[in-house]
């Protein structure tokens, strides 16, 4: 630290130039000293694994003949592999339902919490956010209990009305069962982000809008939502990335939903089972990389179509 203490720069015109050069050099050095430690971690745990996965995905290991370079064969295999394609189709379909549902719910709740003040409202805000503090695995375990035929409440509740309880572990309903779990898990978190953005809006804007005769709905639609558009884009991107990588919840519920959730239910589960159950690291890496490519393409396309709305990037 003592090394870095700046000497008082001489005030003469002539020396100012050299001091400026020295300051510039030091600014480069200090910048890299601050960014460097993260840079090393970034290289070691992001760039290196990505490069390595790409490398691995270009090889195939055979019982006879050992490992050989096959270039893009693994990708050709993945994009014609019904297991990968059905998993990818599932997560894309799931994202198309889950993301709008979560964000509309979060937006609605955030607007209510922003517009109304009462003790109950403050309590609600905390309670709605609560599931975010729950690990997704535990959340899935908890909903697994509630869906369960042997000790869940659904059987009793539906018996009350003389119906039979839906089986959320069946092939037809697992989509909705999982949709409910992720909505419960994430809507509160998105709500808090949107709520924080709403609270940051200058209230004099509402006053001005009211003077112009705008009602509560118009203020919400014309002022509040456009002003928090960057926050909406941010959570859309994060939910898109998260949903396409779907793994934890189906992995946990697959024990309870035996026969419905197979090892190839989502691309990530398929990559995991290829790599760790079948020790097929090359194909597992190719699936991971192909999924990463799909995620990247989806996010890029999304940001491209929303670029007019001053996104967060």
């Amino acid at each position: 630290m003592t090394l870095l203490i700046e000497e008082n720069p001489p005030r003469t015109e002539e020396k100012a130039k050299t001091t400026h050069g020295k300051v510039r050099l030091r600014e480069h050095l200090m910048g890299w000293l601050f960014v460097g430690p993260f840079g090393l971690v970034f290289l070691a745990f992001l760039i290196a694994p990505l490069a390595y996965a790409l490398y691995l995905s270009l090889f195939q290991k055979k019982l006879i003949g050992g490992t050989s370079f096959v270039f893009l064969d693994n990708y050709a295999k993945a994009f014609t592999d019904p297991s990968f394609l059905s998993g990818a189709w599932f997560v894309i379909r799931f994202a198309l339902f889950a993301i709008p549902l979560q964000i509309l719910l979060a937006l609605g709740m955030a607007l209510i919490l922003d517009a109304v003040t009462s003790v109950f409202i403050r309590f609600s805000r905390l309670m709605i956010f609560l599931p975010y503090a729950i690990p997704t695995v535990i959340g899935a375990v908890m909903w697994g209990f509630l869906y369960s035929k042997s000790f869940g409440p659904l059987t009793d509740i539906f018996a009350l009305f003389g119906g039979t309880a839906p089986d959320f572990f069946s092939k037809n309903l697992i989509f909705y069962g999982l949709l409910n779990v992720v909505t419960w898990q994430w809507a509160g978190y998105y709500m808090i982000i949107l709520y924080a953005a709403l609270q940051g809006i200058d209230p004099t804007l509402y006053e001005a809008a009211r003077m112009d005769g705008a009602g509560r709905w118009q203020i919400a639609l014309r002022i509040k939502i456009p002003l928090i558009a960057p926050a909406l884009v941010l959570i859309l991107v994060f939910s898109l990335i998260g949903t396409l990588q779907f793994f934890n919840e189906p992995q946990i519920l697959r024990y309870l939903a035996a026969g419905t959730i197979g090892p190839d239910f989502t691309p990530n589960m398929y990559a995991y089972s290829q790599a760790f159950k079948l020790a097929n690291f090359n194909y597992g890496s190719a699936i991971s990389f192909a999924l990463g490519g799909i995620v990247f393409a989806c996010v890029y396309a999304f940001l491209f179509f929303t670029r007019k709305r001053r996104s967060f990037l």
Partner: protein
Amino acid sequence: MTTVSRAGGRRRPQRHLPLQVLLGFLVVYFLVPFWWVIVNSSKDSPGLFSGGNTLWFTDNVDYLGNLERLFTYDGGIYGRWILNSTLYALAGGLGATILAVMAGYGFAKYRFAGRRFSFSILLGALMVPGTALVIPTFIMFSGLGLTNTIWAVILPSLLNPFGVYLMHVYARDAVPDEILDAARVDGAGELRTFLRVAFPLMRPAVVTVLLLSAVASWNNYFLPLAMLSDNRLFPVTVGLGVWQGIASANNSGGTSLWSLIILGALVSVVPLIIAFFTLQRHWRGGLSVGGLR
């Protein structure tokens, strides 16, 4: 002027009752799983499977007995899992936060060579799905003999590109260059300026990033599931997942395990809930950063 303020005064006491009722239903929805777990962790296995009301207590409320069974089952492995989770969350969270704060400040306040390029790489990295890294990291670590150690879980958790992005935005807006220059003119070194002048100004964002990275480590499932095979190193997420697999696989023999899993799920969520509620004032200010500017 007076009419406007009177109108505003009349509007304020409105409680929007329908909206509050609607919100009440939503709160019930968000709390139902917690309620189920709280109620059913008081039951023993016969009570659990007796077919009574699953949303209410039985006559036999036995939290203490269940807690004792939970923490003594299999040589007290559950307590170990909680400690492991705590270690991973603290080490990963603290490490990731220190790196993110430094890098965010560096990106915001120094015009160094390669800054624009490395920052755009960082923004691209926000879109890299974290789970895509697990398989190659596993193979790299197994070459170094690091799999099945605590480092296999802690080291990859140090990476938090979003934390760097958040800190960058916050440092750029909340730390004025003039204050830094003034500190330098007063003879403070760069590190001293950072620690004494910039850091206190960045504190709300620091708490937010710390909490977000600690939660991410605590919640992590895919990484430890892939890296660890010794169940004494498991975090509680992987441990409970394994128990659930055992309990579901042999439905008759596993019934005693179900009551442990239910209480185990409840106990495992208590530390984070406490952390969130006690730190509430600090992280709320930081959350708006990512979205607003």
